[in-house]
């Protein structure tokens, strides 16, 4: 079983649109949406939810006003400035529990926190594991880890070949959690200076965690000079550029119809994504044989 995670560094480069199309092209796979903060894959895949599990994570301090003597020690020691006027600001509280340990009158207790939901769904493309982190919650990395774990379990139970996951933007906690131990990272970039800068950083994250990467340049024709520069950069770094997808409003049209673009049109964009999937599966097949 191979796990492909789609990342980009910069947001809005086309990760979810591409994952949606890979969902339609790949066989024997489970899909995972690891962008638990602002997940969008479900909008394309129209899942019917089969399981809805609560995600309890982290704790939030609670001060009992009847016991509190307003000595102010908790306020003074909290490094996250989460206690003001003897009340806890749940959004700022990091759940460390320092206050609860030092309160001289034991007025502070830590309460479990419902941080989100994890869903297992059926789609016409196969099973989908997705999640919804509660608004302004922490621990997105832990929820991502649970999404991946559940996807892996489904892949094993059903003897599937691939896990295809839609990753979050950035380089921090949820990205690291989506990436570590995956078979391949597909990095979707665009030929803008921001896209290139962010690609370099996320590629460094892949190297840091030892995950092989492959690049896909989306909207390559909005700046062909930059596209060339990306290709040059990738070839110097020994990273394959697996596809160059042109800019086309058809992608947005397909999205409005909520269908993966490869099912909506047979144009250049779709042909390029099909070639991308062939390339990915070939590379994964080769690594399997080498092992």
């Amino acid at each position, binding site marked *: 079983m191979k796990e492909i995670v789609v990342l980009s560094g910069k*947001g809005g480069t086309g990760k979810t649109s591409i994952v949606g199309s890979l969902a339609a092209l790949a066989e024997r796979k489970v899909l995972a949406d690891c962008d638990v903060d602002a997940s969008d894959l479900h909008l394309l895949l129209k899942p019917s939810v089969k399981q809805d599990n609560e995600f309890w994570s982290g704790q939030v301090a609670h001060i009992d006003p009847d016991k509190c003597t307003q000595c102010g020690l908790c306020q003074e020691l909290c490094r996250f400035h989460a206690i003001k006027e003897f009340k806890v600001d749940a959004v700022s509280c990091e759940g460390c529990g320092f206050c609860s340990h030092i309160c001289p009158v034991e007025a502070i207790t830590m309460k479990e926190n419902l941080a989100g939901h994890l869903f297992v769904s059926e789609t016409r493309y196969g099973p989908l594991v997705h999640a919804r982190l509660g608004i302004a919650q922490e621990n997105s990395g832990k929820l991502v880890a649970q999404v991946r774990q559940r996807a892996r379990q489904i892949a094993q139970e059903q003897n599937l070949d691939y896990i295809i996951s839609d990753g979050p933007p950035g380089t921090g906690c949820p990205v690291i959690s989506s990436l570590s131990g995956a078979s391949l990272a597909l990095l979707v970039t665009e030929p*803008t200076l921001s896209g290139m800068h962010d690609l370099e950083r996320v590629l460094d994250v892949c190297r840091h965690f030892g995950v092989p990467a492959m690049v896909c340049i989306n909207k390559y024709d909005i700046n062909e000079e930059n596209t060339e520069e990306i290709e040059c950069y990738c070839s110097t770094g020994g990273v394959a550029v697996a596809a160059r997808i042109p800019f086309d409003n058809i992608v947005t049209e397909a999205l409005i119809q909520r269908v993966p673009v490869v099912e909506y049109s047979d144009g250049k964009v779709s042909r390029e994504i099909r070639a991308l999937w062939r390339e990915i599966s070939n590379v994964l097949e080769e690594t399997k044989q080498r092992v």
Partner: protein
Amino acid sequence: MIISVASGKGGTGKTLVATSLALSLKDSHKVVILDCDVEEPNDHILLKPVITGNEPVNIQVPAVDEKKCNYCGKCAKVCAYHAIAVLGEHVLTFPQLCHGCGTCGYLCPEKAISEAPRQTGVVEWGHSDGVGFVRGVLTIGEAMAPPVIRKVKEHANGIGIVIRDIPPGTSCPVVEAVKGSDFCILVTEPTPFGLNDLALAVETVRKLGIPCGVVLNRAGVGDAGVEDYCRKENIPILLTIPLDTEIARLYSRGVALVEGMPQWQGRFCQLFNAIKEIVDERNRGIKR
């Protein structure tokens, strides 16, 4: 006044809006831009600032003096993040898991735990053609963005207009970056993804009690979902930017919109005036 530029969904044009807003206001106000997207900061690409200083961002992690330690295990018991463990006569620390809360050191009965800085990022500052500039950069491989964001925010001294470029999403880095703003601009695009993530971003800023308004980018393709939503939720659409290949090309080359197309400057000034009116109105309401 502190104005945040956020979005929920990535790649909708936060950086474009934040940089053009800053550049449009610099002749009439003292303006500083804070790039709080410390995982993938991009404002410097458009503003090309002169960097005049920097400082490391450290979190305080435990340093155990094993000569004093009697392996009682109290530290491991109180650590909420499993960042310190006692195994027989060994204390193991996992600095990457540590949030720097200070609980273990304070509660150690033998006073065997002091703190040592661990660098997780850097803050840089400077200026760009009359605009003050601050950005944070999270070190590659580091998970926790909020401490770096906190440090970036400390560098704005509250004079004039502060514009914060916020990371995408709705979780802790976004909350840390937006907290304390007077207003939050939400940049979106007229697609189902843009709408879905806008609704999440609206919930986030409402939870923080910060007023918001929308900038609709790449208008022209797409559907009417975002406009319908804004009408229903009573959220003003403060500026509309069309889908335009010229705008996309300028951005791809790292040219700020108001520099490549100066005719936009007036519209960004109007955007600011509309925000100022909302914030002033709200402040009057609070005072009353």
